[in-house]
């Protein structure tokens, strides 16, 4: 018998624990070669209210076991998402969440209000790694009050499942995790990319035109496992692990460390079938250990 791997994440029932991470799967319309049965859910590329051009090239640079990206949240804006993508999503057999971004707490709220009730939109993932323009460019994700304010602003406008995606660039992720949990988040995603820089020794300047970029890929996995684990210890809502998952074993590290599901990003660039292979690998692991469902997987989650 195939082990059961469906999971309930803050009110959303997913067919499997392996999700496509925001910004690494477009709006799902490309989905090259992937067998969709394996996709627990898709989180859309991050969107803003208005269209955005994104950063000038070069936008990516490879680093040891990782890559830097500075896409600059290029996107068509909320109206195009409602018009062009949501109708397709409504037909699909897995849920699609929209990754929402703003420069002020109220902008996040407006975005949620516009999308709430649109068929095809199963929930929201709040990206709090954006600069808070009102507070002089500090990041929402670094400040528990700002993170909670964004979460509340969205919570007021929607009853749909609400996930908050945490930034790793903090001294204590538990503080932020608790703040957004109290503000009404249904689940947390840990983590977004780490800020990094790579220098072009021919030009004596950063490789990326935006100067810095977000580091993703296997390089950050041990950091992501730690942060997801810390978040899971801090809150009672589910935590979705993200960061450097390439193989099923990597996903299982997050699951054992207390996560309820995982998102896969960079791996999809390397192997378009990565999500399906990771999904199948988790099934195989459970079967080999005689575990009849994901719920039986032993977790390492000591409470302080």
């Amino acid at each position, binding site marked *: 018998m195939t082990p059961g791997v469906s999971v309930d994440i803050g009110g959303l029932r997913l067919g499997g624990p392996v999700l496509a991470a925001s910004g690494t799967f477009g709006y799902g319309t490309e989905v090259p070669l992937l067998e969709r049965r394996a996709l627990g859910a898709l989180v859309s590329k991050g969107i803003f209210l208005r269209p955005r051009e994104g*950063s000038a*090239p070069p936008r990516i640079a490879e680093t040891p076991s990782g890559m830097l990206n500075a*896409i600059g949240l290029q996107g068509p804006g909320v109206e195009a998402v409602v018009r062009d993508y949501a109708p397709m999503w409504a037909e699909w057999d897995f849920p699609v969440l929209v990754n929402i971004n703003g420069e002020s707490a109220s902008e996040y709220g407006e975005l949620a209000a516009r999308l709430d009730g649109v068929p095809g939109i199963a929930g929201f993932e709040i990206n709090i790694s954006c600069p808070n323009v009102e507070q002089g460019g500090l990041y929402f994700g670094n400040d528990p009050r700002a993170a909670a304010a964004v979460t509340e602003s969205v919570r007021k406008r929607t009853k749909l499942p609400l996930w908050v995606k945490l930034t790793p660039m903090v001294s204590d992720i538990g503080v932020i995790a608790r703040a957004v949990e109290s503000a009404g988040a249904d689940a947390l995603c840990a983590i977004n990319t780490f800020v990094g820089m790579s220098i*072009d020794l021919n*030009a004596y300047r950063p490789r990326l035109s935006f100067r810095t970029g977000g580091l993703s890929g296997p390089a950050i996995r041990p950091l992501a496992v730690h942060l997801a684990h810390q978040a899971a210890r801090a809150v009672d809502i589910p935590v979705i692990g993200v960061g450097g998952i390439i193989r099923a074993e990597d996903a299982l590290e997050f699951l054992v460390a207390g996560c309820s599901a995982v998102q896969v990003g960079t791996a999809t660039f390397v*192997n*378009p079938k990565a999500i399906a292979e990771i999904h199948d690998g988790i099934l195989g692991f459970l079967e080999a250990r005689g575990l009849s469902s994901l719920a039986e997987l032993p977790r390492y989650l000591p409470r302080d």
Partner: protein
Amino acid sequence: MFLLDASIMGRRQVARGMFVIGMHAPEIATTVRAGQFVNLGWASGPLLRRPFSVYRADGEHIEVVLKAVGLGTAQLLAMELGDRVSCLGPLGRGFELAGANAVLISGGLGVAPMPLAARDARAVGMEVTWVHGARTAAELCAEAGGDRVIWATDDGSQGIQGTAVAASPDAEAVLACGPNRMLAAVAERWPHAQVSVETYMGCGTGVCLGCAMPLKRGGYDRACTEGPVYRAADVDWGALPSHLAYAVGT
């Protein structure tokens, strides 16, 4: 689009430091069009795949042409016959071929998409002029196609002294590939030319937005999906990164 484990079937040298590698990739060989590319990855290689134009396709095999410019290309060139490479493709939009005649202009490694372009152009009855330039004779790709061949070298050691662009006649269809500097010159002379442009790529499949191509009309296209072949006049050449190694030299 296919994802195949392809065996390396052969390797030959075509210019100083420039090699053609053949691999067994039947589904790609039969579907690839001129100007499309494959994205290659391999065990113990770098994290990200590396994009290469398809140089030739014949029966069950495809070929790519490359030089060792970094870790990935050096590892590819160090592979032995029978070693396996994961091959994703065909990717991107290729050349559109129509008209009575075409000129295929390439500089250095820009020769990569041209053998297929010559094949496909002649298949639709176009008369093909092949113009290939490099710094010196030793760096010219020895393999050429088309009805007529024009060589150009910076030092005059073979063919016309000067650039491939300067050496090239006009034609109804102008296809070009090479350093960005060369392509910008093509754009000046033939705004309607089709140029194959290189960018850094994350995925090659359209999902990462890493391969931004700056457009004259503003904003960016995905070079892996809307490109890598563009109308020369559509590209904002000034906004293309100029400090990249590959954008500077041949």
